[in-house]
């Protein structure tokens, strides 16, 4: 099993080796090794319960918050072991941001939603700096034009698609290197989904993006690399266009052609 479909690239942004995740006695992830590259969108696909979200959460230690979860193996960000005792988890999650399935803005103003992260991480020495970060983040998230005149309105008053872009702006505001997205469009209508996909396309040059999606067409549209998970195993990892036109593994083929199960 290749960790990376291409060997020509420089060092991977994140690399996982022999990762196992257990919830109590139950093993959710089995010996997964994979590289995630900068400037690329990597999609994780697979049926419900295959472990793709669980694995995604190991990449910024979100599983730490799950009481009985245990992670073994080696996960590195720029060569640095993210499970090392010296790793500051708050700092890690600023570098490896996350966007969830359901938009979850804070019940605060649009401005505060974006300003919160930079403020607690001390990224904005002055009010002017903070305003600049908020504007830049909202612009990158493709939301600025829609909200610039009502930044003090509550974030929860926005539409679902706008809320999700607000959450992306919030993730971007702390200047992350990697953005993890766990089904970011599953609660959105097709227009809002298209806007998020366009946004992912624009963000890709700046960050390493990993997206978990149930929508295979979405994986095909937005990603350059696709990893197929099944029963906790990484079955196949490859160039997206090849995974969807000529997968190597029978299990991948059955899943993407709708013959699963």
């Amino acid at each position, binding site marked *: 099993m290749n960790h990376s479909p291409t060997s020509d690239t420089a060092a991977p942004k994140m690399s996982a080796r022999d990762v196992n995740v257990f919830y109590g006695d139950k093993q959710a992830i089995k010996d997964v090794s994979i590289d995630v590259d900068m400037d690329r969108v990597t999609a994780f696909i697979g049926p419900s319960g295959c472990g793709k979200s669980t694995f995604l959460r190991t990449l910024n230690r979100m599983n730490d918050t799950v009481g009985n979860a245990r992670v073994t193996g080696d996960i590195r960000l720029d060569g640095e072991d993210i499970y090392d005792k010296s790793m500051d988890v708050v700092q890690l999650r600023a570098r490896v941001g996350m966007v969830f399935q359901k938009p979850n803005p804070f019940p605060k103003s649009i401005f505060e939603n974006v300003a919160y992260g930079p403020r607690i991480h001390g990224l904005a020495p002055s009010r002017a700096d903070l305003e600049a970060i908020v504007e830049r983040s909202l612009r990158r998230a493709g939301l600025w034009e829609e909200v610039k005149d009502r930044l003090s309105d509550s974030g929860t008053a926005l539409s679902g698609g706008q809320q999700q872009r607000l959450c992306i702006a919030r993730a971007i505001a702390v200047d992350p290197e990697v953005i993890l997205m766990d089904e970011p469009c599953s609660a959105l209508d097709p227009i809002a989904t298209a806007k998020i996909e366009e946004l992912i396309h624009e963000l890709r040059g700046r960050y390493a993006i990993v997206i978990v999606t149930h929508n295979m067409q979405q994986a095909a549209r937005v990603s350059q690399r696709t990893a197929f998970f099944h029963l906790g195993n990484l079955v196949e990892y490859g160039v997206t266009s090849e995974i969807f*036109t000529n997968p190597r593994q*029978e299990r991948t*083929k059955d899943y*993407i*052609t*709708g*013959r699963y199960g």
Partner: protein
Amino acid sequence: MPTGHEHTVKAFDEEIGHLRALISQMGGLAEQGISDAMLALQRNDPTLAKEVRTADAKIDAIQAEVERLVVRVIALRAPMADDLREVVAALKIAAVVERIGDYAKNIAKRVPMIHQGEDRIEAVSLLPAMAQMASDMVHDVLDAFSARNAEAAVAVCERDRALDDFYDSIFRTLVTFMVENPRTIGQVAHLLFVAKNLERIGDHATNVAEMVYFAATGRYLADREPAEPSDL
């Protein structure tokens, strides 16, 4: 390549099945066209020749149906992997089979021209064996498509060289015949076109074989030694 697994959405399997049936039906009609055209040629049967020309319209109609179905399947089912390759191959194969039908029609159109005048053209007897060879290639390559059999497709490709050799030998024989019987040049020239049409049918069957190979394996048949193209 075939897993034998059915799609979770059964209607998708039905549509793929329908698509395969249409391609088989087209292939059957094209084979029939070739054999009827050759029979009409041998027997000097203008009625049968005319039937070949009208039957060709049926092939054209099925091709249009294949196109509609493929567009619909792509739009509604978003096929992936081997499904996608098969659907695209079906679209391309339908266009090629339509061309093969046109060659059969063209042979049928030449029947009255070949049989004009008093002379019985003995050289006509050379062509049925070549026609059978070309028609078998069409038959076998479409069987390979139905069965998703890449090896059978390769075997068809390999037969194209023999067909080309056959054509070269018929070409020389017909030229010799014309030299010896200059009065028949007008008629035998048409026979030359018939032979050339059969040779082209073989080329088309080879193209289809390449499409079948890609649909079945996801790889191109590029490594294969290309058969020497006939210069004649």
